[in-house]
Structures are given as C-alpha cells and as structure tokens.
C-alpha cells in the first residue's frame, strides 16, 4: 500500500537549512499495523506528514496504492486525503470555538456525505474512540487534552479511510484510555482491514503493532516484525476485572 524510496526532507535553505529526513525507504502492506519509534527530533512527524500527503518530500518517491503521490497536484492530494487517509496530529488538532461533534462531522461534509448520515457516523466514531455523549456539544476549548486526542482520533476514522496515520495518539492519555484507543485502532485493523501507522515513544504501545520501524537522526535504523502483538481489548478487559495492574504498564 505504502512504498517510499530514498525520501529526504530539508527545511529552509542556505545556512539555516536543516535536513530532517536523510533517505528513508520502507513499505507497508495493506492491512498492516506498523509502529514507528525513535527519539525526539528524529524526524518521525516529518515522515508522517509526508505519508499523509500533507507535505511533499524534497526528493525520493512515494507510491500510495501504486500511484506516485509525489507527482500529484494540490487538488489531487486533497482528494487522496479526503478518501484514503485519516490523520491524528501530535498537536494543533481541532478547530477552535467549534463543537466536538462539528469537528468530527467536517470531513464528511467535505466528502459530500448526506447530512442525516453524517451525525450518526460522527457520533459512532466518537463513542468508539472512548468519548461519552455528554461532551459532544462542548466547544473544542472546553475539553481536556486527552479528550481532544480522542476527538481527533474519531475525526480520523469517521470517513472510513483505508490508511490511518496517528502521531502519538496516546501521548496525552492515561493508561486505561490509551488501551481503549489502541483497542479501537486494533479493531479497525483486524475487522475492517484498515492499514495503520502509529508513532510512539512507548515500547508498551509499540508492542501492539505487527511491525516496528525504528528511526534515528532522519534514518531508518531497524525494521522488526512483532509475531505476537499484544491485544489491547483483552488487556482492557483484564484491567477492568482487576487481573492486570495498570501501574506496571507504561501505556
């Protein structure tokens, strides 16, 4: 599904130029769940923006579903984002002074989904991201950081994208909620065959993925398969019945 070759990204020019990616190559198959790990400043977000068609690489090629994305026009990229990709940002996620529900409905408006269906799907997405109904009509500045993250996840999956890109989606969440969110992503991955790429600092989170790509200093340093990914839904259940100690889990 994703195939990138020798991607580089340089910010700025001249003396102040900074190369955040120095030739990254890997591929992700359809239906995979991949985690990207690496220290802060290693270029994870930069890579993610390129994968999400939000930014263009300075050099290298990117094929998404066999099509060369690096040669697409702005409007074609918008089409791709609208139809195929759901994105969860590390920060600046929601429209200000706009209700939670409206934020999630918005991608469906741009995708021309008929209006009665929109609300239903948005509510469904919010519920499955672990946000309760009482917050649906709150403005985006009236909810907590963790709740913002969940609304962002709901927005990313509301238009059933085949590829979901999440930049530290559990970064602001407590362990219990992190497990709920991971469970949601795993369910989308397993039951609906969505491809998921997730950035995280936490090994405990990365172990829920089927493959782990480690980056450092703008380069891929290792790609390893995880034969036995942890099951977040199961862990949530165990945790609720007291059989799993959350403090032992840095999720």
């Amino acid at each position, binding site marked *: 599904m994703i195939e990138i070759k020798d991607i580089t990204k340089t910010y700025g020019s001249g003396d102040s130029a900074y190369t955040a990616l120095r030739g990254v190559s890997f591929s992700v198959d359809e239906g995979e769940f991949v985690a990207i790990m690496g220290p802060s400043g290693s270029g994870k977000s930069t890579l993610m923006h390129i994968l999400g068609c*939000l930014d263009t690489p300075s050099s290298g090629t990117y094929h998404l579903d066999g099509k060369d994305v690096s040669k697409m026009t702005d409007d074609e990229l918008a089409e791709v*984002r609208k139809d195929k990709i759901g994105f969860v940002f590390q920060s*600046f*996620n929601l*429209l200000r*002074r706009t209700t939670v529900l409206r934020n999630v409905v918005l*991608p469906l408006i*741009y995708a021309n989904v008929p*209006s009665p269906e929109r609300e239903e799907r948005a509510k469904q997405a919010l519920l499955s991201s672990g946000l309760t109904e009482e917050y649906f009509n709150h403005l985006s500045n009236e909810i907590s950081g963790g709740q913002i993250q969940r609304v962002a996840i709901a927005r990313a999956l509301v238009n059933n994208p085949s590829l979901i890109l999440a930049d530290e989606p559990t970064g602001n969440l407590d362990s219990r909620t992190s497990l709920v969110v991971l469970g949601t992503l795993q369910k989308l991955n397993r039951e609906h065959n969505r491809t998921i790429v997730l950035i995280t600092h936490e090994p405990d989170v990365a172990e829920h993925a089927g493959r782990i790509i480690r980056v450092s200093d703008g380069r891929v340093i290792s790609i390893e398969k995880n034969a036995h990914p942890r099951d977040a839904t199961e862990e949530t259940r165990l945790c609720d019945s007291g059989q799993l100690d959350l403090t032992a889990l840095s999720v």
Partner: protein
Amino acid sequence: MKTQDLLQETYLALSANKARSGLTVLGIVIGIASVIALMAIGQGTQNAVSSSINSLGANLLVVTPGAAKQIGFGASSGRGSAQSLTVSDENALMQVQNVAAVSGEYSGRYQVAVAAANTNTTVDGVDGAYAQIRNIDMNEGSFITSSQAASLGKVAVIGSTVATDLFGANATSTNLVGKAIRINNMQFTITGVMATKGGSGFGSQDDTIFIPLTTALQYFAGNGNQYLSTIDIEATTQQSMTQVQNDITNLLLQRHHISDPTQADFSILNQQELVSAVSSVTGTFTTLLAAIAGISLVVGGIGIMNMMLTTVTERMREIGLRKAIGATRKDINTQFLAEAIALTFVGGGIGVALGWGIAYLVTATGIMTAQVTWSSVLLAFGVSAGIGIVFGWYPARRASNLNPIDALRYE
C-alpha cells in the same frame, strides 16, 4: 461542499468569533454610513439653495435705488435710503423689449393688528403682476388685482406666517378672506392668503403682507410721494436677460439725465448672476463634503482591509487543518468568499440604513436638508464590499495554495 453546508459553515464560522465579525461589520457600517450621510447633506444643501433662489422668480431682474454696489449687497442697504425710482420709471420700463412683467414695490415695516393679536411685519405695496414675477401661489382668495389698485382699495393679501401670527396656528384651515385687519391703524380687508413658500434665506414672503402699490403710496408714503423701494422685472426668456438689463440701464440713465454710467443712481440685480455666484459657493461646499466623504471611504476601506487580512492570517491554522481533513482549494476559497460576502453585505445593509437614518435626522432637525442619492449608496456600498471581498478572499486564496503543514505551522 453543498450550498446548504456552505451557508451553515459560514454562519458557524462567523458566530464562532462574534467580536471579530462584529468589529469588521462595524468598520463597514461606519465607512458606508458616513459617506452616504455626508453626500446627502451636500446634495441636499445644493438643492435647497438653488430651489430657494428659483423661488424668487424666474428670469428676475431687480432695480434698486442708490449707487451700484457689488452684486447681492447693494440691494439690502438700498431700500428707502435713496429716492430715485418713480412710478413713471416703472411705466416706462414696461415698454422695453422682451420684458414680460413689471411691478414696482413700496415697502416698510408697520404694526399690524386684529382683534385678538398684533405683530410687526413687512407691508409691501405691489402691482398685480408681482404674483407672476415672484411665482406666488394662493392658498385662499386671490392676489391683488388691477381694479383694486385703480380704486386705491384697502385690501391685503397675507403670507402664511402672518396668518399664523395673527390668527393662531391652525389659521390656514379657517376662512380668513373677508376678515378685517388694521395696518398702521388703518382698516384693511383680507382678500387672499398665500401658500407657504418656505425658505428663509432671501427675504421670506411668508412673513409679508401685500397691498396695492397705489394704496401704499397714498397712505404710507406721505403726500404726493411717488418714489419706489424697488422695481421687479421679469424677462421673457433667460437668454434675453442681458439684453433687458442693458436696455433698462440705458433707459433709466436717459430718464434720469445721467451721462456717465458709473454715476448711476440705481443698481440692477440680475438673478442669473446671483444663481451662478451662489452655485459656485455651494459647488465648493459640495466638493469639500465629497472630499471628506472620500477620506472616510478610504479610512473605512483600510479598516475593512486590516480586519480581513488579520482574520485570514489568524486563521491560517484553520485553513491548514481543513485542508488536512480533505478540503480542496475550492472549498476553502468559497468558504472565505462566502464569509467576506456575508460580512460586507450585513455591514453594507446596516451602513446604508444608518446613513439614510442620519440623513433623515439631519433633515428632521431642520438645520439642513439632506438628500440621499443612489449614486452615493452604490459608490459607498460598492467600494466597501469590493474591499471587503477582495481582502477577505485573496489572502485566503493564497493560504489555500499552501500545503497543509505549512499553513498549520504558519506564525
């Protein structure tokens, strides 16, 4: 994006930031309202002045006794101060080519009384032709006739202000013809009440009583006195006024045995010259107001421009986020265009209404007349709407061309 969604999105975006939207609208309102009000005042004043001059009578020439001074100023000090115009002069002037009507005038201020009230006002002895020369309309009864003049009739035609002063505020609705009135302790009979002429600038006829010239000379001017205060002449056409003025000058010089025109013992006020003198003044006034209006339009426009530019810059992140979740450039462009149109039209609507309201209030106070012109409404609205739309839409259009991350990171 469907139209309905676009409208909803526009409404939500504008109401999400009420203060910002409110200030933008306010800027537009002030810009438009001040332009409309100022131009209305300019236009209204110009109209009032020219209609007030025209109400003096068309193609009018006024001969006053006394040496020729500057146009427009000689007339006021001339009355009664010199005695050089006579009834026989008046009769002679009727023979001049292209003269349509002539009326001598003998006027003075006298005490006027009825049973219940008294006042002091101008009593003006005139000929019947005066009504034609000065465009007088009657409310009731008729103006002075030549038979009344021939018989030295003690009849009076009163102006509407006089009627109100003497007979109370609702005098015009009561039947005044036939009532007695004492002028300088002499008994007169009212034979007519004039329609209100309005205007006060040029000797209001509303506050005047007209009596036959012969009667005035007989009873008010003293024995055998045949000297007139002024002679009013109406030329047949506007084109003939210069010729009539020259012929009158020559005729009077000859009759008064004066060979040097600079020594003339009379002066002639040409209404046409007065009109052009006054309209050059009001023209300057209107230009001044238009310049002020133009400045407010520019200031208002810059205000709108500022607001729109800050709005878009402030909303760069929003544009980036919208693009990230699937908005195309067209979606962004139409949304910002719709918002700019909504703001400018709401502001424009209120501004036009407010400008109109100010013009109405100014007129209602009676200090000035303000007349709203469609051209000023279109100009003010067009310029503000144009600026609002261009500066609301163009930066958004530029922003929509950025890739989403650059827009999201914009500082």
